């Protein structure tokens, strides 16, 4: 018998879209909650339109993007027009039998629907309502719009990343969509513990942008305690802890250390890089030994101040050595000698070449109705008694209307058919997909 899931019996009404919100609900679903995603085909989730992730040979459409698939696994989906009275009524009935409502609209939207927290708790007194607006629902700029890159810019995270004297490199993806999603799940689960202990629900007003500020603590305190200028020479220090020639101050990535950099490896392709970090003199001496104790690695480099002073020269020599081997060979040699090193891994490397992720079942195979055999990302933790699991592919749009409305809410089949005729469950202006016709038979 399979082990039970931790969130069994929890039902989540998921109004989220794009990345941060759906990613939050995705993890609740992966932990065993029953997540019901509420959508409307005329306001498609933008991930259903992601142009980069329709596999070749698959007919493009809202059910055919790989990015939506992974972000919305372990959910069921219904299509309801909440702008109609009947649609809104259905959603309210769904909320009345649910534990969590989660959304990442702009801060005014749910209230406009008549689904702000004060209304939600009339429908379900112990409801947990997690809102995930960019600036939150409280504060003078709550109505400002953000997407991941703007949120991480505003949070201070972007400023921490890049080479000195160059534009900010920032983060090459919406890190605060991933992280905002984490905090959406964190908020729901934390509030769930409060409900378990007290019987009470609440509104958790999350700001996606502010999640990033709480990740800049040492830089924040360096400003408020020391008055350190945030814009300064040699900051950010690229992959190093201190840029050559710059003042020796801590730049918020752990201890000051050298070597601490990315180095090219053989055969010199786009992602043929590895990083090495020596956090102590002993680790440095291990590296010197591993490199065959070359003549250049003399006593000038014995101490951290010496290595910082001669950092450019040291890094050039190290890279001559790293270029003689592949990134995985380098990683293994260094690790065998107790040196902190790792290959720079692309997406392809993680999926195909990483023996650790393979051993840990990171990519779980499961068939998807449109994409065929697919892989879904697993939870990054193993729970001994109630494991997370990949239980189902994402919903096709409107796929579960009938089972949710008839089995869960007790609508008659005739009510459901009417909903399709009068534009409550499907736009009257749009053809129905074959799976919808089939479900209605």
């Amino acid at each position: 018998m399979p082990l039970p899931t931790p969130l069994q019996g929890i039902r989540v009404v998921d109004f989220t879209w794009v990345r941060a919100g759906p990613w939050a609900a995705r993890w609740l679903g992966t932990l065993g909650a029953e997540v019901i995603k509420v959508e409307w085909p005329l306001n498609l989730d933008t991930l259903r339109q992601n142009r980069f992730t329709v596999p070749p040979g698959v007919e493009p459409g809202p059910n055919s993007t790989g990015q939506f698939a992974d972000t919305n696994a372990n959910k069921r989906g219904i299509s309801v027009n909440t702008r109609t009275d009947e649609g809104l009524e259905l959603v309210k009935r769904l909320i009345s039998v649910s534990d969590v409502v989660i959304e990442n609209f702009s801060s005014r939207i749910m209230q406009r629907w008549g689904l702000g927290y004060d209304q939600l708790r009339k429908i379900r007194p112990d409801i947990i309502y997690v809102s995930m607006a960019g600036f939150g629902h409280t504060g003078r700029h709550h109505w400002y719009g953000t997407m991941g890159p703007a949120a991480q810019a505003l949070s201070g995270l972007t400023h921490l990343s890049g080479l000195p004297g160059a534009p900010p490199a920032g983060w090459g993806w919406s890190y605060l969509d991933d992280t905002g999603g984490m905090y959406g799940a964190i908020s729901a689960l934390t509030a769930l513990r409060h409900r378990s202990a007290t019987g009470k629900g609440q509104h958790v007003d999350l700001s996606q942008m502010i999640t990033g500020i709480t990740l800049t603590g040492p830089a924040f305190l360096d400003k408020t305690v020391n008055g350190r200028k945030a814009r300064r020479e040699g900051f950010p220090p690229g992959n190093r802890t201190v840029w050559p020639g710059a003042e020796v101050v801590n730049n918020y990535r752990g201890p000051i250390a050298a070597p601490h950099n990315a180095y090219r490896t053989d055969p010199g392709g786009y992602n043929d890089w590895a990083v090495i970090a020596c956090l102590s003199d002993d680790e440095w001496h291990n590296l010197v030994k591993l490199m065959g104790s070359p003549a250049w690695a003399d006593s000038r480099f014995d101490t951290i101040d010496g290595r910082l002073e001669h950092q450019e020269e040291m890094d050039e020599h190290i890279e001559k050595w790293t270029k003689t081997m592949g990134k995985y060979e380098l990683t293994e040699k260094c690790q065998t000698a107790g040196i902190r090193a790792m290959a720079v891994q692309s997406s392809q490397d993680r999926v195909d070449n990483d023996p650790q992720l393979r051993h840990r079942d990171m990519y779980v195979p499961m068939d998807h109705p449109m994409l065929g055999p697919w892989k879904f990302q697993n939870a990054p933790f193993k729970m001994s008694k109630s494991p997370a699991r990949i239980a189902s592919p994402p919903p096709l749009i409107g796929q579960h209307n009938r089972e949710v409305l008839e089995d869960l809410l007790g609508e008659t089949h005739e009510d459901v058919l009417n909903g399709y005729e009068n534009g409550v469950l499907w736009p009257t202006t749009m053809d129905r997909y074959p799976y919808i016709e089939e479900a209605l038979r």
Partner: protein
Amino acid sequence: MTTPTNGNRPDGVDIGGARPADLNLPGALDGLRVLEICDEKGQFCGKLMADNGADLIKIEPPGGETCRSFGPFMDDVPHRERSLSFWHYNTSKRGITLNLETPQGQEIFKRLAATADIVLESRKPGYLESLGLGYETLSADNPSLIICSLTPYGQTGPWRDYVSSDITQMAGGGQMASSGYDDIDVPNPPPIAPGGGNSWHIGAHYAYIGIMAALYYRFLSGEGQYIDASIHEACALTTEGAIAIYLSTGEVVQRHTGRHAAPDMSPAIQFPTGDGGWLNTTRSGTNLTPARLKLLAEWFDQSGMADDLTDERYQDPAVIAEENDHIVQVMKNFFMNSTLMDSFHGGQQRDFPWGAIRSMDEIVGDDHLIDREFFKEVEHPELGRSFTYPGPAALFNGSPWRISRRAPLIGEHNSEILQGELGLTNSQMLLYAEGGVI
């Protein structure tokens, strides 16, 4: 343009907010006891639990945890009680010192574990078991105990004993393969590991989620369990679309300056401002319909910077598309004659979802954050001073997330916990201190 007041859009719609009724209400994790044996890898997960109300006891080796030596330090004077990094990551915790490699230390730890709901640890795989302090032993006395090990690569697999640091985790996890520069900005650019120690944050977020899920399962079943969390796997999950793109098309993303890594080239979205800042307009954040272009033109025109954009011919999508390069140039000129924060607020007030690339110089003191009571004054009684800390990302209106006290000094609560709770005598405390147990 009027500044909207708290809780209202400029159009007057009041949308409330979620301020807690009373900041002194207990946090959501009130009544839970957590033992933490963590360095930089797990301490943020502990902070999240402690700031949310758990009674968290941080167990450090005698002399203090290694990450007390991470700068920056207060007034740039290195000292294990002055690490601002340690201060930030250990708020709301109590602290004791205990040498787990001594029999007496192990005995004390077992007695504490019998009182705990959660143990969070980030030592090398197998270390606690080797001391007789593994899950099997501790759960025998306390079956509802949840233990979470948060380690670089997890407890099993070919890399489980690999050593790591923040940058090596970001290499293996894929953060670096997605972050960096276009050649035009930096010739032959390396992949860049984003700063701030975020691999530890990423691991901590998932460990926290696992622990909370285990708590709910315990609520249902009464049973505790063991959680084996991997920072490498957490990081590998945190590159948004890169994996989905590869699985879908076999394409590997290329790095671009300050914007999404993607299989293709894309327009630049970061623009310098006159005061030396940078504005991020996001890839789809401009979306210039005729109506939106008109908003921009009228705004720019107020300072005589609209060039010809007020011309009626721009009220045609075809002309906007054709003149894109020119329009971008006019925008650039405007930003270079404006300031970072004026460009940002001016754009947002016209519904352009832009972001200023703020540093702490702009974040500390920000009005919106003041409205959310984000800035938290934390007392350091031993210094007779208080300092401003970053507060919660989310306002829980029924169980506030808040910093309850500064990080513990080394062994600050030895007497309170070991004597006050476990009943150790004065002579035991003396012997244990001299014997290197505490």
